């Protein structure tokens, strides 16, 4: 308190107002610094997703045919494949994908590219750098890889979304990762939504807040919301992956996956992780329902559950859904627990059931980011763009829903 006296005595009014202006600027800066960083982050990711690349081919397409591959007929492409691939390799391809005779022109072109031409990105330069000093970069590439083709490459393409995992960044895609994420989220919602809303209804509508057990319940939920996510991963590893391996591997259902590191374990772990957050946000939605609504219903002779089901829940539903969407977007971006539960980057098959092994989009981003080859950072950036697009649209939905809700009240 003494300081205020000192301040007012030492500074005349205009000086004090100048300090005020200065600090107001600082406070505003603190508020927007996060947004500035967010902007830089997005620019970085875009910068790495669209790059100038130097690509060398193992076999020059010009030696395969006198025209570009895209213009060749299906028969000519089949001919090239049969001439250039060993019979064993051909048999493997036909077994894994489809017989050559049944493939269309696009499939065959893709096959010739991946199996024979084998383009490899030798160097890749971020977008803005390449725009500003393209000539220098081209000279650099020419001296190092004389026969390389130089062009702009978008790492995020429709193909990228559909391709399978690969150890080569040029051929890798996020197909299994996207499907894995969807499966996990599906299990998470299926388990966490009913239990979370149920627990919230119990705490808000039934529980006597003076009773000891209910106070413990409430405190416990708040504590759980603050537990680091990796702890849930440890719990999932110990309980779902190890102790309940017979169930989570599907052994008791006759589809043994071999270990408990399955989508089911991942989804259940995620469900436990989001449960406290879901309960707290649903509680808030229920608390916003006016008392008079319940009293009117009771006055008409409705029982407690009739009141909740027919009056309280419909009124609170938009709020509960908003909370659920935000929770889902949190779960979609979560990585750490799934590392422990056993997400694996070596997944080449689409997940078939809850007993399949899995990888997810954030896990794939992590995996690609920590690899030493710089091209993996490019596909990590492309995967980040996919993830951010999904999350931002989820968040936008939640905000729209919330605005509608606040208008209605």
């Amino acid at each position: 308190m003494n300081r205020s006296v000192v301040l007012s005595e030492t500074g005349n009014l205009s000086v004090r107002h100048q300090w005020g202006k200065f600090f107001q600027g600082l406070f505003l800066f603190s508020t927007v610094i996060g947004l500035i960083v967010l902007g830089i982050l997005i620019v970085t990711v875009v910068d790495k997703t669209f790059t100038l690349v130097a690509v060398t081919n193992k076999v020059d397409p010009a030696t395969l045919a006198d025209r570009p591959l895209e213009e060749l007929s299906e028969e000519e492409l089949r001919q090239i494949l049969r001439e250039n691939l060993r019979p064993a390799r051909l048999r493997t391809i036909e077994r894994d994908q489809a017989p050559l005779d049944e493939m269309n022109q696009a499939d065959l072109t893709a096959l010739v590219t991946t199996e024979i031409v084998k383009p490899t990105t030798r160097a890749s330069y971020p977008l803005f750098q390449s725009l500003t000093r393209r000539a220098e970069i081209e000279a650099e590439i020419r001296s190092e890889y004389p026969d390389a083709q130089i062009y702009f490459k978008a790492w995020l393409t429709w193909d990228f979304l559909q391709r399978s995992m690969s150890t080569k960044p040029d051929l890798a895609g996020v197909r299994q990762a996207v499907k894995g994420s969807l499966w996990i989220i599906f299990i998470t919602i299926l388990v966490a939504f009913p239990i979370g809303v149920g627990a919230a209804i119990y705490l808000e509508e039934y529980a006597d807040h003076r009773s000891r057990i209910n106070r413990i319940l409430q405190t416990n939920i708040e504590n759980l919301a603050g537990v680091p996510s990796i702890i849930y991963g440890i719990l999932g590893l110990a309980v779902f992956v190890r102790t309940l391996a017979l169930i989570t591997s599907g052994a008791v259902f006759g589809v043994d996956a071999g270990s408990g590191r399955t989508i089911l374990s991942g989804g259940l772990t995620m469900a436990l992780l989001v449960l406290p957050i879901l309960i707290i946000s649903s509680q808030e939605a229920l608390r916003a329902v006016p008392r008079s609504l319940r009293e009117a219903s009771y006055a008409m002779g409705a029982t407690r559950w009739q009141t909740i089901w027919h009056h309280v829940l419909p009124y609170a539903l938009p709020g509960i859904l908003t909370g659920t969407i935000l929770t889902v977007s949190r779960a979609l971006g979560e990585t750490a627990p799934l590392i422990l539960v056993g997400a694996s980057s070596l997944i080449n098959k689409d997940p078939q059931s809850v007993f399949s092994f899995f990888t997810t989009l954030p896990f794939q981003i992590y995996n690609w980011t920590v690899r030493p080859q710089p091209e993996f950072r490019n596909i990590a950036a492309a995967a980040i763009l996919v993830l951010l697009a999904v999350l931002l649209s989820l968040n936008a939905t939640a905000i729209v829903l919330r605005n509608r809700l606040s208008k209605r009240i």
Partner: protein
Amino acid sequence: MEVSLRHLKRPEESALDVSRRLQKRPRWGEGFIQAFLFFCGAVSILTTIGIVYELGKEALLFFQMPGVTLLEFFTKTEWQPTVGRFGVLPLVSATLVTTVIAMMVAVPFGLGAAIYLSEYASEKARKVLKPALEVLAGIPTVVYGYFALTTVTPFLRIFFGDAINIYNMLSAGLTMGIMIIPLVASVSEDALHSVPNALREGAYAMGATRLETSLQVVVPAALSGIIAGFILGFSRAIGETMIVAIAAGAGPNFTFNPLKAAETMTGYIARISGGDVAYDTPDYNSIFAIGLLLFGISLVLNIISRRISARLREVYE
């Protein structure tokens, strides 16, 4: 009594029959639903018991291994469970360094943002800025990790040159700080918002400027809530995994130099469990011992934070 029953009485009934008929019917469905809802609530208790039991059980196995003692665990500075070095300090020191750096970013900026939103911003500006901060809070941490490694570290290299490692605690800590700003800002803003307007008006009446009112009247009045927010942020930083796993480096390193690479507790857990870790090995058990330590620290911090903010609520309600 007689009067009230007259209307309800059917011809053949006595007063006793009527009162029986009006008695509460047993509703098994209602009871069943309530029991189910209670079970839903109890799942969270089961989760807590599960965490404590599993962490405790495996950590106990860890401490029963030959050569592991509590004293060594908390005092030795080398952590190599596979070759019998069980001093957790290098992991703790790295966690501490990254967390302190994060707080040095999150505390001033988070508080500044809270003051701006609560004391300066117009209603319109708040409506835009608050959701924007929420978006920032919704960015997955793995994306922040990517950002730390590919943008923040190269940026820091401009200033430190080769003195700074590719993987370093400074870049991880700074990025983590940015990540925590929204959390600190939102908790502090709630605290500032709950300060009664009378206090501000009193200060204005005494001739204080808005800045003097904010810093010398409102902030001290909301101090306990603000501190609760800082503690929450601290706890969040300690438990954060992906940013440090990507950007702070792999391999325990007992150092307080933020320019060096060092592995945090969470980073260690993520790295060890990343492969197919075999059950009942020193590595596997050590995950649980460190998990228990992490769980204990964040639990204590959360409880302190909630105590403080509960006290604040009492003062102004």
